[in-house]
């Protein structure tokens, strides 16, 4: 019962930690707009967290510039499991218009498995909510998988 309760509430209270790897801030203000009264992601329990230690969903925006690559990897290291990675807008996926530039270190997929990607050069807040909601459901699966793996480890 306890495990089911934890798995259920993992989906109901995903905390977001936002990493900006060189984005033009279009997606960043969209992400924050999601918490405003009009779109109100807090209905589903989303809350911005201050540190990667409190994060469940890591939202990455911007093409991975060379300066921010090492910092991105280090921060992703420090997020406790289970956590999902959501890429916001086109930049993390493909580098958008900055593709091929000397300082862009390629798509996010190279460094971490991206669970949900929300396309749109600044995706609409509803699309962001949809993406985060899907990520929360994936989080539930990951939590179940982790719990399962723990049984295997323990037994």
């Amino acid at each position: 019962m306890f495990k089911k309760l934890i798995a259920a509430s993992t989906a109901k209270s995903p905390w977001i930690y936002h990493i900006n790897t060189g984005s033009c801030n279009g997606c960043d203000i969209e992400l924050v707009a999601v918490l405003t009264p009009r779109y109100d992601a807090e209905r589903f329990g989303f809350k911005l967290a201050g540190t990667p230690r409190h994060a469940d969903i890591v939202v990455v925006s911007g093409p991975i510039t060379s300066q921010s690559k090492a910092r991105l990897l280090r921060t992703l290291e420090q997020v406790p499991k289970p956590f999902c990675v959501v890429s916001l807008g086109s930049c993390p996926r493909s580098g958008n218009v900055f593709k091929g530039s000397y300082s862009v270190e390629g798509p996010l997929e190279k460094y971490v498995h991206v669970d949900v990607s929300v396309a749109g050069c600044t995706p609409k807040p509803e699309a962001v909510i949809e993406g985060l909601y899907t990520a929360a459901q994936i989080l539930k699966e990951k939590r179940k998988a982790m719990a399962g793996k723990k049984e295997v480890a323990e037994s």
Partner: protein
Amino acid sequence: MTVFIQILLILFHVLVFPGFLFVFVCGLLLAGIDRKILARMQKRVGPPLLQPFYDFFKLMGKETIIPDAANKAVYRIAPIAGLASLVVTMNFIPVFSFSAMSFSADIIVIIYLLTIPAVALIVGGSASGSPFAGVGISREMVTMISYELPLILILLAVAKKAGGAELCFSLSGIVEWQQSTYLGIAHWSLIPAALAMLLVIPAEVGTQPFDTAEAETEICEGPLIEYSGAPLGVFKLNTAIKMFIMTSLFTCLFLGGIDTGIVALNALILFAIDAGLTILCMTFIHAVTARLKIEHLFKFYWTIVSALALISLILVWIGL
């Protein structure tokens, strides 16, 4: 035989009624109400009432990363020590004439019992070894210094009013005094003290305008920066329970007169009053003001709120 029953009774008091379960449910429900009403004040729908429960159980499921620079033992024990002392404090606070163990402690003891969770947070943050936490605990300590002065003034005022000639520090004594005369708050000389207490509660709990210690934007959650998983869940639970305890302390001191005989009904009324108080003093101020700098917070508490409390102490001292 009676010793066995007494042990059972103590266990019941500690773990169920005014103890862990009651405080756990009421605390988190109060936090839920607080977040919901805050959202509604900002014209948005806001999270479901049980959101703090979901947060707590989710954090239970998360992995706990203990950083290398941290002192592992203190890192783990700090939250649990804070929670344990909070639950024990609840036993000492009478629920409208039903007092589990209220005979055994008076106001000064409760004030010091309430410093243990704050010290647990501080030592826990310091043990996690992060410089952000260092800044966080320094702010948390200054907040503690700032709200301690008005708190002691308020308590002395109520004790003098309730006690009259002889020394009356015990909370159940104060509740009985209110039941004999009319409500504490109805004595007009205690109204400034009640107002000061309403301003002290948000600082003690650490809600928005006075949460400089755990400012997510400036020092990424202050002392809680390196906490993740179960210890973080317990710290969040501590904050919620402290919200419930401080408001029920206010009810005992100023609205203690109500008594309906049935303990369960009393508990319900206590929760209702606490919810009202939370909305009045924590959620409304949270919705309307912005976070204070630590220096202004200190000045605010040691001038305005202490002056309020001092006025009522002097009024009571003159004998009004």
